[in-house]
């Protein structure tokens, strides 16, 4: 028997206001900064420049340079300072421009922020959000294109959010800011201009609740962040061939909504896990093993996974496009899995 799923289904959007992913992030920050004077932003080029992606444009005008703080190019320093400020009662949001740069802040994220609550026996808290980006195909080469969310998903004490739509970005970011734990929040930089429905009225999305982005019966396509769009397109193409694909978006890798992944795989009997991080030792391995352990007796085919190739992301577009999953490769993999009986 499959457990009743706690997963959300796509919300019924009453007022069909559409905004971009970047606007959704900005709205979440602005609303939380209005709501709570302890919330502030710190990062490189966050104030007048509003970041290179213009995600934060206008915030310094409303909240001033005391709460939208332009910092030096010091990822470790600003993450450490934000951790200390969080321990002393503030709720900082750190902006790390490219996900590749979290490597510079890893001691502060993994050894400090993640462990302070536990090491202090629960006495200290780190209500910190680290916003950063992931995703390739922007022709930015090996040090500006990685999807390193597996690194932080590996560390106890951190929560990790991977929004795939403007709606999810806003609702998850608001929850992340209100959470009393450090949350690393990955935004796909190719998705900033993606438009989607976002209601005018206040809402939040809890961390740890997956969403079935598209219901289906033949195969479960688990996809995160940037790969949700790929999964949705693949599902649409496969529907034309009579293959019904269920797209499940975990939305957070930590906490992970295991029940929804397992319930979907038990229902469909087949699963393909899709994620833009490196496939080897990556998030797909964890998600596939959750499904394999939890749905084994319902599976009609081995769980498959697809992530980035085990190469540094190359610059040349013809090479870069080979490194990450595409709609065509996903469609081919699904056909293969469904062909098994």
């Amino acid at each position, binding site marked *: 028997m499959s457990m009743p799923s706690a997963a959300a289904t796509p919300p019924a959007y009453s007022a069909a206001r559409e905004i971009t992913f970047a606007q959704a992030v900005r709205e979440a920050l602005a609303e939380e900064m209005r709501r709570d004077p302890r919330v502030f932003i710190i990062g490189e080029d966050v104030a007048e420049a509003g970041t290179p992606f213009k995600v934060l444009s206008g915030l310094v005008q409303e909240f001033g340079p005391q709460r939208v703080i332009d910092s030096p190019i010091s990822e470790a*320093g600003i993450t450490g300072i934000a951790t200390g400020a969080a*321990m002393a*009662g503030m709720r900082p949001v750190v902006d790390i421009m490219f996900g590749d740069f979290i490597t510079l802040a890893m001691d502060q994220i993994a050894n*400090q922020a993640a462990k302070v609550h536990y*090491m202090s*026996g629960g*006495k*200290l*808290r780190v209500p910190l959000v680290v916003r950063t980006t992931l995703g390739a195909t922007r022709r930015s080469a090996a040090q500006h294109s990685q999807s390193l969310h597996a690194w932080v998903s590996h560390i106890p004490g951190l929560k990790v959010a991977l929004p795939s739509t403007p709606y999810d970005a806003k609702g998850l970011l608001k929850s992340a800011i209100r959470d009393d734990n450090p949350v690393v929040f990955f935004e796909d930089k190719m998705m900033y201009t993606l438009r989607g429905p976002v209601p005018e009225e206040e809402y939040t999305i809890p961390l740890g609740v997956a969403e079935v982005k598209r219901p289906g019966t033949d195969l479960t396509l688990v996809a995160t962040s940037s790969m949700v769009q790929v999964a949705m397109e693949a599902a649409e193409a496969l529907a034309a061939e009579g293959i019904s694909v269920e797209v499940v978006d975990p939305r957070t890798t930590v906490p992970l909504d295991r029940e929804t992944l397992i319930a979907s795989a038990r229902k469909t009997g087949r699963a393909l896990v899709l994620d833009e991080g490196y496939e080897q030792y990556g998030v797909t391995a964890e998600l596939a093993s959750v499904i394999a352990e939890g749905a084994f007796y319902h599976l009609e085919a081995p769980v498959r996974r697809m992530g980035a190739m085990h190469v540094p992301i190359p610059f040349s577009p013809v090479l870069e496009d080979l490194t990450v999953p595409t709609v065509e490769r996903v469609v081919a993999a699904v056909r293969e899995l469904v062909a098994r009986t």
Partner: protein
Amino acid sequence: MPGSAEAAQWLQAYREMLAIRIFEERVHDLYRRGKMPGLAHLYIGQEAVAVGVCRALRPDDYITSTHRGHGHCLAKGAAPDRMFAELLGKAAGYCRGKGGSMHIADPDSGNLGANAIVAGSTGIATGAALAAKMRGTDQVAVCFFGEGALGQGILYEVMNMAALWRLPVIYVCENNLYTEYTHYSETTAGEVGARPAAFGIPVHEVDGQDVRAVYAAASAAVQRARRGDGPSFLLCHTYRYLGHHVGDVDRSYRSREEEERWRRERDPLQLLSAWLTAQGLAEPAVFERMGEEVRREVEAGVAFALDAPYPEAEEVARHVYA
């Protein structure tokens, strides 16, 4: 018997230094008798730095500490019994036994935690100072670290920001001459004080064995920070009497003569008691009596910790998330 406020103040400082000394001697003893799991990095010899600085602070001021942190924690107000309990991994410890010697945190006394990454807490202390400034309190944050932390880049990142934003933080560098097992001159180019000075941070170089000198420098730095005039850097010259940690017994990287010289000529407790006596502020019997009292308190703390229960198994998965 002189009863002046000055006498009382320095007798109290002596008592606090003595408490750290006896606490650490007892830790050493527990380790050698196999009563303490893991390791400890002892503070013996450096007591004047922690006490001189913390006496310049209010209870609501923040500190961050290091792997060699017992002295800072005690000086800021931690109690020996719960300290020992933490060192023995007991549930009554400051961190419920989950932090241990290198991670004692006590927010009630303003202690944001000791840290096992040598410059790991420099960001935290600077961030606490930023929080104090943003909230409009006049709290200050003190960041204790050893000269070994001069090798890690985050220190320079955060000093830059502290100077830019005039944050109320005091960087206290305890140069005990040895970066773990290596003399600091082999690891540190140029003048230490030139590094903070490059950011425009005022540097006070003090004799870290003289608690009165440390207190005076710390008080000036604290006043400056409270006024909103920004960070300071205290460079305290001191000496670690024992090894890098309790297991570092042969110490082949330095001579026994050098160690003896510091103990004989530069001991912070002896220097203060000699000064108090010479000034006619205390009689020798006072120190003996105080020694007995402190020893009794420390012994009570050890007994408490030895008798205290270990954490229940379910404690292992608690506090991963708030």
